[in-house]
């Protein structure tokens, strides 16, 4: 199904389109949430609300405003960040970082995380310390680049170029998959 078809299907509240969207994107989108909220029950609650929001707000998505995935991932990311900043968010076990995450992934039984022999751990090994810190704080701790600049006293421009460098590594690696 093309992105266009999915979107028009969603706008018509076509159940098959929603089903397709779920099958194609739920793993990645839930990944966005669970990176920031490691507690699975809370992450699933946030994911539920975010996915319902994606389907019901599809009318506000406009083509030309970036592709569908970016839009959906941002809804999930923002929902997760809002949750971690809300009062009822339990702080227990909130020490998520790349390393904890990779460790947790390794402990899981499904081996779907290894695609063509490249796993998340290998991917992370490609990043230098600066880049790892950026990915850690942006992807796993939900920081904005301005917050990173403040927290580590790094000029904003430097943070921006490091974000770019980190993405470049991911891009290079993901092209092989």
């Amino acid at each position, binding site marked *: 199904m093309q992105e266009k078809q999915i979107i028009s299907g969603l706008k018509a509240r076509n159940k098959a389109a*929603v089903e397709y969207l*779920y099958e194609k994107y*739920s*793993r*990645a*989108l*839930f*990944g*966005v949430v*669970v*990176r920031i909220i490691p507690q699975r029950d809370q992450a*699933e609650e946030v*994911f*539920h609300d975010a*996915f*319902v929001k994606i*389907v*019901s707000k599809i009318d506000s998505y406009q083509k*030309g*405003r*970036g*592709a569908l*995935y*970016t839009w959906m*991932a*941002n809804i999930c*990311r*923002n929902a997760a960040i809002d949750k971690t900043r809300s009062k009822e968010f339990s702080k227990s076990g909130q020490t998520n970082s790349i390393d904890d*995450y990779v460790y947790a*992934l390794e402990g*899981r039984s*499904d081996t779907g*995380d290894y695609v063509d022999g*490249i*796993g*998340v751990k290998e*991917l992370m090994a490609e990043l230098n*310390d*600066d880049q790892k810190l950026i990915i850690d704080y942006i992807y796993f701790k939900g920081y*904005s*680049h*301005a917050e990173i*600049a*403040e927290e*580590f*006293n*790094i*000029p*904003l421009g*430097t943070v*921006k*170029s490091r*974000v*770019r460098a980190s*993405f470049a590594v*991911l*891009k290079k690696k*993901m*092209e092989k*998959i």
Partner: protein
Amino acid sequence: MKGYISSGILELYLLGELSERERQEVEQMAARYPEIREELDQLEASMFAFDRLSGQKPSPAIKDKIFASLEVETPPASIKTMDTPESKALSRWRNFSAAAAVVALLATVFAFYFANRYYSTQEEYRTLVLERSVLAEELEINQARYEQMEEFLGGDFDRIPLEGEAYEMQKDAQVDIFWDRNDARVFASVRNLQLLEPGQDYQLWAIGEDGPIGIGIINASQTGLLQQMETVSAAGAFAITIEPKGGSQTPTLENLVVLGEVV
């Protein structure tokens, strides 16, 4: 075009971190220049691939719950017309309670509407405040940099490149020292230094006839920025070593990272 792509703005766009104005700018640029569109598409594809690779399947129960929630979200039922009244008295009451129900319904609708408006306005306000503080911060950084540049340009500075090539620690380390012999001011600019473990610092040494003197700590993460060091009036060489946090009295020579002689 290259500069726009390499500024990192596309990445921030994908992360949803740009202001409304910047976001529109990216979209206009992408519509106008195919290279930008392509870069954006590639970045998005790799972000999706990364998220999928590192993602997890939510449990099947959640899927059922989501679809159940979506079922409920059907359009609201239309209001049915009233039956004809059986008696006048009853009809009056009926009319009255119907009117009351309508008023209550309207009040609820208005309450929801205004609550919604209130929250979205509040959200917009928060975004604006955040945006403003980011701008103020950027301005402050630029102002400080500008003042420093002015001071720098007013002096008579020699550049002494320090290289790590000859030493074991970091072969590709490079730091530039700018030294004005007339008034003894020293600035350092990091070109390439690895970040250190917590508990360690890079210390700059001026090596003169009396041996090395520590003239300050260098921040490795501030690449390309001028960092002001302590003054020194005579030196034959400058060097950087890794020392315990806060620096040492004398340099730890086996931790020598870079060195450069004054010519």
